[in-house]
């Protein structure tokens, strides 16, 4: 079946611009996660959705970052006034059950964001 998909696969933008990154989770998965992976590092947690609500947004680095999941499926990560330090691969993952604890997370291919 279809896995997690993310669009675009690559995004190049200029400092100060606004970007949106999209994630389509596996159908029926209620838990959705965003991570950010900088070069040479492991993924870092950003935000977790259970259904439509952000259950844990403790990983968002500042208020320039925001994410939504209005209908409980597709999610969009939004970054305002981008900075060069935002350059990274942004990963989305989904998981089937409600609590998400201990479940396998299925990762998408990521969006590589480059801020010039």
């Amino acid at each position: 079946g279809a896995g997690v998909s993310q669009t675009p696969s690559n995004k190049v933008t200029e400092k100060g611009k606004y970007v949106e990154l999209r994630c389509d989770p596996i159908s029926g998965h209620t838990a959705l996660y965003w991570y950010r992976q900088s070069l040479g590092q492991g993924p870092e947690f950003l935000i977790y959705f259970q259904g439509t609500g952000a259950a844990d947004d403790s990983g968002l680095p500042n208020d320039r970052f925001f994410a939504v999941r209005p209908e409980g499926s597709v999610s969009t990560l939004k970054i305002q006034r981008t900075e060069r330090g935002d350059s990274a691969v942004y990963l989305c993952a989904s998981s089937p059950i409600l609590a998400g604890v201990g479940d396998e997370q299925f990762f998408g291919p990521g969006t590589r964001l480059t801020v010039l």
Partner: protein
Amino acid sequence: AQSVSQHNHHVILSEAASLELGCNYSYGGTVNLFWYVQYPGQHLQLLLKYFSGDPLVKGIKGFEAEFIKSKFSFNLRKPSVQWSDTAEYFCACSSGNTGKLIFGQGTTLQVKP
């Protein structure tokens, strides 16, 4: 705060050599532990996971890991590596009721044919 450390950043082995990648976590409570792998050009995928029970966990492709609670460790092993095991390996843990993963910084494994 939770953290995960992987001791080996870059490992080079010849085919048929044995592999052990170190992973330590810091958290005093109950944790779930994972190893994920990222093959060149592919996305992260799960190798194996530990929730409870038998501390020796077997995963895909002949990999296994042992949870040693007293050492806060979850090392990954494979008795005989293949060229196709060339990839980046990430150890991760989760706890609480969100399932969010805390990753180590990864180990790049290069297997020479």
